């Protein structure tokens, strides 16, 4: 197919009627009605030492919260969830349950259909935010002050638990709104309306937490000053930079970081006003790749290809997510790596080389080339800890694989500094893991502050 006239890339807003876009960005999994929830809750076997709870990074007592749904004790159910995972509302929407709790559900062994734990969790927690139900209260003042950097899942989780434990917290965040990736990173159809903000506000409303927006670490505040001014510091700074493809011609117009576009999309009041390309190539194999591909399709892109250098089993995105992209009309191509961006002033396509594993299991190129035409190329090949952490601080913090190295208690190598979430090594970059990091760190900080 020849390139468009005058070789200008075909990028424009309003590829679809507004109402279609609105439908496309509606709730991906609509909430359960009370009847649906009761029927689904009845499917839970109330397992002993339940595998789903073991599989949950935050260790929610899942049979316990489902049992409470069965008895119409929704508030109790929400308390069971949120006492282990203060972002139980967001996690109900974004957790890859198919590889966590729902994968572990014993119903899989019985009838190959797990209890829909994620949707039940949403059913139990929705009223908390909707009706602003207070489930937790600030503990007696300890007189200690903790700085939390980053108002994402890790930071807010840590701050909330610290407040419950009686400490005062100041949360610094580079953005104008709290929530971190919940607000700026998650696909729009996974968390519709202003849920991320409502949840963040509900968490902050416990009191004892001061939020300082638009505060950039290294610019407005330094790690050294935080260490001096506070009794403890928690870093939940996420990953500020994205990986480059490292190929020829990568800097021409039309090569875009997927995370930037996803953030714009989340913040756009009028999604139809966002320019969308007709033909899109996404390079990467994780959740970001899936999210950008599916959302592009839903904005009206005609042809969207995800290209990943290895096979389906190695993709960061779960099988469920891959299938979701495919039924959304996205083509996933495996075993190809980009070698060159095509185009002079604008992107016109990407040249790929076929890949395979050699006898030692190492990924190699076969030399066989192919081209996919594109108006826009999205980079979605991972993020890294970048300029968020000033070099002076980075130098004194022990790192592992480019991320912060922490102990089981989420302590960094600097005394009095803890870290959690995507910025620490060994995690899986999930919201739920970040929440757990924040919670574990808060308890460790509490023991530290009490001199235990």
């Amino acid at each position, binding site marked *: 197919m020849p390139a468009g006239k005058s070789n200008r890339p075909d990028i424009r807003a309003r590829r679809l009627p507004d109402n279609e876009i609105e439908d496309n960005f509606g709730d991906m999994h609509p909430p359960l009605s009370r*009847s649906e929830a*009761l*029927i689904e*809750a*009845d499917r839970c*076997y*109330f*397992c*002993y*030492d*339940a*595998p789903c709870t073991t599989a949950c990074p935050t260790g929610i007592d899942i049979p316990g919260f489902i049992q409470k749904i*069965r008895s119409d004790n929704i508030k109790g159910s929400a308390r069971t969830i949120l006492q282990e995972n203060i972002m139980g509302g967001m996690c109900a929407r974004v957790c890859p349950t198919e590889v966590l709790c729902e994968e572990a559900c*014993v*119903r899989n*062994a*019985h009838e190959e259909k797990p209890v829909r734990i994620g949707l039940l969790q949403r059913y139990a927690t929705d009223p908390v935010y909707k009706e602003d139900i207070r489930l937790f209260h600030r503990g007696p003042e300890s007189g200690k002050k903790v700085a939390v950097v980053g108002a994402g899942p890790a930071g807010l989780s840590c701050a909330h638990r610290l407040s419950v434990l009686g400490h005062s917290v100041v949360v610094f965040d580079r953005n104008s709104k709290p929530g971190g990736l919940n607000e700026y990173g998650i696909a729009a159809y996974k968390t519709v309306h202003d849920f991320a903000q409502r949840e963040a506000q509900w968490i902050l409303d416990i009191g004892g937490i001061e939020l300082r927006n638009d505060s950039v670490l290294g610019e407005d505040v330094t790690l050294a000053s935080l260490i001096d001014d506070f009794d403890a510091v928690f870093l939940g700074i996420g990953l500020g930079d994205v990986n480059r493809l490292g190929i020829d011609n990568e800097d021409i117009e039309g090569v875009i970081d997927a995370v930037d576009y996803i953030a714009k999309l989340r913040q756009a009041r009028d999604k139809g006003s966002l320019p969308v390309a007709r033909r899109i190539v996404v390079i990467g194999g994780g959740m970001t790749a899936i999210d950008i591909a599916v959302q592009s399709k839903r904005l009206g892109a005609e042809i969207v290809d995800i290209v990943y250098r290895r096979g389906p089993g190695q993709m960061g995105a779960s099988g469920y997510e891959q299938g979701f992209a495919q039924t959304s009309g996205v083509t996933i191509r495996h075993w190809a790596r980009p070698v060159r961006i095509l185009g002079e002033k604008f992107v016109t396509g990407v040249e790929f080389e076929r890949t395979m594993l050699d006898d030692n299991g190492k990924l190699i190129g076969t030399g066989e080339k192919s081209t996919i035409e594109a108006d826009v190329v999205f980079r979605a090949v991972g993020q890294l800890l970048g300029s968020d952490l000033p070099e002076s601080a980075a130098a004194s913090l022990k790192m592992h694989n480019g991320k912060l190295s922490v102990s089981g208690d989420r302590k960094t190598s600097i005394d009095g500094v803890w870290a959690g979430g995507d910025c620490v090594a060994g995690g899986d970059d999930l919201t739920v893991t970040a929440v757990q990091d924040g919670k574990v760190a808060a308890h460790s900080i509490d023991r530290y502050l009490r001199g235990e």
Partner: protein
Amino acid sequence: MNMADLSSEFLGIRSPNPFWLASAPPTDKAYNVNRAFEAGWGGAVWKTLGEDPPIVNVSGPRYGAIHSNERRVIGFNNIELITDRPLKVNLDEIRTIKKDWPDRALLVSVMLPMNEAVWKKYVPMIEDTGADGIELNFGCPHGMSERGMGAAVGQVPDYIRMATEWCRKFAKKPVIVKLTPNVTNVLPPAKAAWEGGADAVSLINTINSIMRVNYETLTMYPTTDGMGSHGGYCGPAVKPIALHMVAEIARNRETAMIPISGIGGITDWRDAVDFLALGASNVQVCTAAMVYGFRIIDDLTAGLSDFLDRKNMRSVSELVGKAVQSVTDWQYLNLNYVEKAVINQDLCIQCGRCHIVCEDASHQAITSTVNGERHFEVIDAECVGCNLCVSVCPVDNCITMEQMTNGVDPRTGRAVSSKKADWTTHPNNPMRKGS
């Protein structure tokens, strides 16, 4: 292909199958009974008639239910009274139905005060309709009992005998006495009915009950203008109570000769098998028809027919009473018999329910881990064979009880004996028979 004969004869009353609709709302009018017979029901006991003027019902809730979370009706109760229509209307409709459906059993339930003259007046009027028999409602536990009828009669054997005698005196056709379960022992009422001349008993009627509280108003539920009254409990939840009472009558020497029509929570064909095998000659159904409609008769008849074929039985009568001899008193159970639970690891879905109930409520006889792995296995040295794990396991047939036929029971350290020994001769029994 064999097809068992489902046709039934009870007290000489023939019906194409042993399934009658019990006296209740589904048999209140010709319209309903007509529909029931069209659907294939073998017979019906007409909703209880009383003296004119007819009673009145409340114009609020008559029914309440206990549901599963999926809103399956598990238990059901009602405060409806006997028919609220004039006697003549009912008698005319009964006459028409019997004429239109000569092959179906059509009986009439009656409830009359303790006064012989009243029975003398009404029994012949009822028999004149052509109905096949009369069922005496001595069971209705609500409303009517406050007026000295229904369960108020059924709870006093002398009254049962007296009223039955009056009815018998003026009736030419079979008389069945319907018994109330709201007694501590069902045998004296059954015996009194037989002595009074009843041809059979039917049981059970409904059980005194309050369904629940309304959690908002903290009143009982349901209510009529804020007040409620106990109702009669029925549905699947009451079946075990009914089966016990049926079996007691069937196995007791003094009552074993009384023909029984079994009632209580029958919903599918297996429930019918329960009643028939424990001594009922036919069965009556109400709640299931009220919950699902008359169409359930298809499963009842087809299921029973296929079951009889599988058992090589040619007729329902071959099944009747088959299980009665297996019902005995606890003291005669073989204390030398040993069973252990066995968990089929291929079927086990690892829910751990068996472990936690055994751990918390029984004998700590099921592992939760073996060699550090999640694994549920019976510890024979602790297992008393109680069947709790079998009862709670969500997977059919995953846990089974297996008899130990030889060797030493690791729990007691005693060799398994094939010799039967029960409590009557047990050394711990101070009342044991001398050996």
